[in-house]
């Protein structure tokens, strides 16, 4: 579990972040949040699904990076295999906490992250207590992510209103003939997409979402890459096939 501390120049004047160890941090996420502005790039690496964000009734885009919690098969022995890294990972080991003041979120640091060190890596604060360029950049990324998340939420809301999001179960077939059903994900309803009226299509095109949707649709075939990477990392649980099944609502 992450152990978050509110970031402060007093407390973290001799805390460092070793970026080379970040992939080890990534390895804890089997579903990685992707913002809509990143979706086209992300679709060249990961199979993209929709999922409801925990505790909140809103949709987000998730890259399927593994088939079980705490398994990210795009990480192996500390190396990150993807060429594109979503904002939700690049901002680590920091995150923003909105609980105290939704207008002015606090930056928090996961001090149990393997990338956090007291001896090596990037310093966070200068002797004057001002942030280093490294921390400055991270904070810019955190801000960028907040803006991107708001955009994602708004646009996915529109997409859901058009009934384009369809809950889907994954059925994972292992080589030992066992099966595992994974719920909680959703895909684009391709049929519905093909049958949109010209007005609906035009409104999606205007917000720039239409091309993103087709990329998300095509990204499903990246599941073969996730399967391949899974079989390399966990040969004892070799997967033969993954099926999609529209779940009953």
């Amino acid at each position, binding site marked *: 579990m992450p152990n978050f501390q509110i970031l402060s120049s007093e407390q973290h004047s001799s805390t460092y972040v070793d970026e080379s160890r970040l992939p080890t941090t990534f390895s804890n996420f089997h579903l990685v949040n992707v913002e809509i502005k990143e979706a086209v790039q992300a679709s060249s690496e990961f199979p993209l699904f929709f999922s409801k964000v925990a505790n909140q009734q809103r949709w987000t885009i998730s890259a399927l990076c593994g088939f079980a919690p705490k398994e990210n098969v795009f990480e192996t022995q500390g190396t990150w295999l993807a060429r594109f890294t979503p904002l939700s990972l690049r901002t680590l080991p920091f995150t923003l906490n909105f609980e105290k003041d939704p207008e002015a979120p606090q930056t928090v640091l996961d001090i149990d992250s393997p990338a956090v060190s007291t001896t090596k890596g990037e310093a966070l604060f200068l*002797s*004057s207590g001002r942030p280093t*360029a490294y921390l*400055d950049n991270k904070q*810019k990324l955190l801000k*960028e992510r907040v803006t991107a998340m708001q955009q994602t939420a708004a646009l996915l809301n529109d997409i859901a209103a058009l009934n384009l999001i369809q809950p889907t179960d994954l059925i994972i077939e292992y080589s030992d003939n066992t099966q595992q059903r994974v719920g909680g994900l959703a895909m684009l309803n391709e049929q519905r997409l093909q049958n949109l009226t010209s007005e609906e299509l035009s409104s999606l095109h205007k917000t720039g979402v239409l091309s993103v949707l087709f990329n998300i649709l095509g990204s499903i075939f990246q599941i073969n890459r996730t399967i391949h990477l899974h079989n390399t990392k966990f040969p004892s649980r070799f997967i033969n096939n993954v099926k999609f099944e529209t779940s009953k609502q």
Partner: protein
Amino acid sequence: MNNSTNTSSKQLIVIVGGGTAGWLTAAIVAAKHKIAKGQCGLDITLVESSDIPTVGVGEGTWPTMRNTLKDIGLSEKEVFRKCSAAFKQGGKFVNWVNGDGDFYYHPFTVPLGYGRVEMAPYIDNVSEFANSTNFQQHVCEQNMAPRTLNEEEYSSAQSNYAYHLDAGAFADMLKTFCKEELGVTHKVATVEQVATSSKQCIESITLDDNSILEADLFVDCSGFRSMLLGEALGEPVVSANDTLFNNSALALHVPYNGDFEIKPYTQATAQEAGWIWDIGLSSRRGVGHVYSTDFTTDERAEELLRRYVGDDKGELTPRVIRFDSGYKKQIWKGNCIGVGLSAGFVEPLEATALMLIEISARYIAEQMPTPASAMPIISQRFNKQMQYRWQRIIDFLKLHYIFNQRSEPYWLANRDAASIPDSLKEDLEIWKYRGPQIADFSAAIELFPAASYQYVLYGMGFSPDFSLQSHFYTQRDLANKVIQQNQLITQQKLSSLPNHRNYIEQWLAS
């Protein structure tokens, strides 16, 4: 030339005055003629009196200073360390139009599309010119540095920049470097007597230690007093007081308090009868009020200055500087050249003082050594160039004043046609229907490019009537593309450039 006491074969240059002008001139000339460490192809002596304080408020430079420092051989990091330097990416002019919080920028980076497409005719609200065609205003408003920590010192690949620096510390740094690295002889003495040959050239100067110095070239860096060029050779000042009204300044050093930002630009905020400069160094701010005593009193000027810096209790003590605006026509007369305040002075609105020293010193460096027979020719050429430059500077400074819409007598008087030089009136007659263009500034000796005039004119809301030549303006698609591209570049800069103060601290710590 009088060369009898010179035992070496080298030509002799004697610089009188050890302020920024003296030491910067010595450094530029000596570096150009450097043979080896501590050895110079010219024999350069700088004479400075120990008891004359320097004016030392010239704290803003032009981007030309980058190459000047590099050519002298200084490490940029050392300059930042020793002179509490900061980056300057342009000027921000606040309240110059209405006085209700309006502002515009004169950034150092040229507009996007410059030389490819004339952007102004395609911008609906021309006062948004700098914003639509340039990223630097946004970078300045966010207090960002002009480059990242990954870039080398002196790198201006991302954005063009100049410096804010502590002028006193800068002169000290140059002094040490001149003596240790460049072979300049330093003499601490007061000039007692100047002998001229019928006021046409300097025969010699006599110092208070009774030594007599002769030289192939005397450089007068004695400040406003102009001991050689003015007092001894009688070269008069051509006044520009009728055009530029300011004649006084109050200067303050303002400490930073608490958690502060260092502004990466010079801010000039218009006042009732003048304007206040605000220059961020890494250790403090330099703030001063330039005003005209014809339109306000010293007391009122001080009151406004204190109000600006929030010094209600009167804890800071301003230094008073009186000046006339003007320049000498013969800056190089006989074997004597004036550099710095002795050559001329105009208010520091566009930080021209140090830049003119750089230009003059570079000219000396390029022309010396010279046979006596050629000196009248090179001096005449220089005087012609400099006269043109002074006129252009005066025009450009005046340009900042004439499109104001303020109602105070000072600002009304500044709009009065009688105060506007004919040369500027002629330019404006043309710019009225097509705006300033690159071709208007093709001369090699021009100081301000068309871009500067565009930023200031359009920033003030001067909107040319492009209709007469409307058939020229068929590049709307390209112009729109440039505007879009500028938005993209702006976003990239904002997400990649570091905070200005943090950059300096981290850079200097490494």
